[in-house]
């Protein structure tokens, strides 16, 4: 259903209580906030900061800035080498375990260095130099 609220900027307000979003309508007759008394399909849009999306398809891109895509290969290798080391220990092959562990650490180190180097750079696409431009009266 469509909305009948003419001026939401002055008639509506929101606030947060724990994990819940409170939505109130200003009442002309009472000081107590009231809930809105109509159903509105897609009646509100919340703008929020959220965690990156999970990717499950091969054709998708990881949901993070592309400077971090290549380092992700290093961290995957580090984790897989670490898993291999654990398996080698379980099989009683200590030499292989030590080698896998060392390789895992190498990849983890490369990953950490890349993240440290790239993480401090301004990579957001919304950047750019700001300047105050006075209004022209011409």
């Amino acid at each position, binding site marked *: 259903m469509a909305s009948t*609220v*003419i001026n939401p900027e002055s008639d509506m307000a929101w606030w947060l209580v724990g*994990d819940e979003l409170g939505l109130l309508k200003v009442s002309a007759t009472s000081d107590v906030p009231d809930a809105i008394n109509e159903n509105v399909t897609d009646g509100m849009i919340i703008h929020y900061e959220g965690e990156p999306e999970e990717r499950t398809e091969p054709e998708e891109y990881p949901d993070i800035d592309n400077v971090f895509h290549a380092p992700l290969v290093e961290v*995957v290798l580090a984790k897989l080498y670490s898993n291999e080391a654990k398996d080698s220990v379980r099989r009683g092959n200590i030499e292989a375990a030590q080698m896998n562990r060392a390789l895992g650490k190498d990849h983890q180190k490369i990953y950490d260095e890349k993240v440290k180097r790239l993480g401090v750079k301004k990579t957001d696409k919304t950047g750019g130099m700001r300047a105050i431009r006075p209004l022209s009266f011409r």
Partner: protein
Amino acid sequence: MARPLKMKQIWDEVRDVFPDAGFKEVARIVNNEVIDLAVRLGKMRMKTHKMNVISGKMFYDLSDANTNLGINKIYRVDFLNSVDKYIMIPRAVDGKAARIYKEV
């Protein structure tokens, strides 16, 4: 200019070293690490979500347990007006905003 990599390309590069690595395992590690990176570097995503407004309902549950939105911080709410435009509505510090507006 960094080269963007698809999940498949990451998987292919991993398979050069671990030919038996499954896509699901690689994707799980990548997804976990992407969330970890976003939290560590403060690179959370700005997102929007449309919600239905229900008559008589004042509180809308946004917890991670009951929604799959993964909300960390809400910074703005827009409400649909009578001419189908979304207008930003003010945030009240607590639920007593009604009194403030009436006095203004």
